[in-house]
């Protein structure tokens, strides 16, 4: 039976906190990429060309139904095979951006479809242009619908970042592994990783729920 050692805990705390910074950075940058990729993938399924729509749709399905871990290895190991030098960080950001971009594209699509058909019809009856209809009527209503999903995937990406340790990104899990290997103590590093995740993701999730409520109130949908 192994005892919890507080002195060791405090000894490794600075390194763990530094790694937490890297984890947050990875999650944040990955999320920003995913938000943009998602937009591109959503628009790619609404082009005038059916062939493009179908191709993008199939690519989205493929990426969505295969594991992030395998994709991470694929990108990290295959790029050098074709003479492309990709650092662990760049591979990680590329993979996370693509993987979660497919999820976000579904969030956007669902949000657009969640705007009632009557709103489109009212805009036509008032003779709005399509661009104007999107900007002034559809997107403002789609945004609160998309917000919960967008928030979930922010937290979702954060919780997937430990996978990046497997290709050598120096985030929390990687640091915990390294500390374990150096000191032969695994109890404190792994438990601390768990707690750090908990203290970050629980308040974030709660904050996002508040934000949703606030946005939906501000839009006047008190009944939605």
């Amino acid at each position, binding site marked *: *039976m192994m005892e919890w050692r507080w002195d060791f805990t405090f000894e490794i705390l600075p390194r763990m906190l530094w790694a937490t910074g890297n984890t947050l950075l990875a999650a944040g940058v990955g999320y920003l990429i995913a938000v943009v990729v998602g937009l591109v993938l959503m628009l790619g399924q609404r082009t005038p060309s059916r062939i493009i729509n179908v191709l993008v749709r199939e690519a989205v399905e493929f990426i969505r139904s*295969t594991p992030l871990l*395998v*994709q991470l290895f694929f990108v990290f190991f*295959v790029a050098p095979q074709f003479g492309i030098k990709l650092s662990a960080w760049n591979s990680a950001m590329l993979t996370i951006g693509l993987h979660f971009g497919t999820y976000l594209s579904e969030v956007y699509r669902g949000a657009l479809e969640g705007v009632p058909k009557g709103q489109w019809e009212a805009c036509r009856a008032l003779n709005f242009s399509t661009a104007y209809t999107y900007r002034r009527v559809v997107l403002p209503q789609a945004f609160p619908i998309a917000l919960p999903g967008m928030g979930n995937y922010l937290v979702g990406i954060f919780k997937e970042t430990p996978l990046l*340790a497997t290709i050598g990104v120096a985030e929390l*899990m990687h640091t915990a592994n390294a500390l374990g290997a150096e000191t032969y103590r695994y109890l404190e590093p792994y438990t601390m990783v*768990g707690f750090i995740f908990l203290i970050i993701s*629980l308040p974030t999730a709660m904050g996002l729920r508040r934000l949703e409520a606030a946005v939906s109130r501000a839009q006047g949908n008190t009944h939605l």
Partner: protein
Amino acid sequence: MSYWEFLAEYLPKLASGALMTIGVMICATLLAAAISILFGLMRLSRNWAFQGPATVYIEFFRGTSLLVQLYWIYYVLPLMGLTLTPFVSGVLALGLNFGAYGAEIVRGGIQSVPRGQWEAARALNLSVSQQMRSIIIPQTFPIVLPPVANLTVELLKATALVALISAVDLMFVAKQINATTWLSAQTFGTALLIYYVMARIALIPFLRWLEVLAARKVGKA
């Protein structure tokens, strides 16, 4: 080496890894389903002795990372005297993690049944467990199944993590082959295709079929 030669040599190994993946997936799904129902119902209880632990459990497992949970079970539990095989550790971590998400789906499904249904059932003088079994639960199926289908696909994908605690699944075999051949595109590309086939050609059609079945049962098809 052409891709066909690669397949001839390594496909059998990858296939045996895929069998392990399917095994992990089925066991973890059963565990997760049992946990979802139990904790979903507990979460709805008005009794704090049930609701409290369920809430803590759900928030804890949804708030931390699957990989952290997996490592903790595999590397830390032995230090406390409980040593589990990679397979059992993997099934346990996946089941506990996905059970927490599933419990929230169960709760949402039951809560979405309109109040009038409970009231009508009570007016017919059904007992609480009868109300649940014959009126409420059947109506939750069509609501619950689509998110459950998504979650099950996520679970299949998440099984790849057990490779990191050296369970010999599809991902593990792919890593092994990659380490000896350095044919990364072929190796991981084929692994991705196998995962895709398992999800899209087997799992998703099966889940859709369940959805149609459930919709027909409650007369919504």
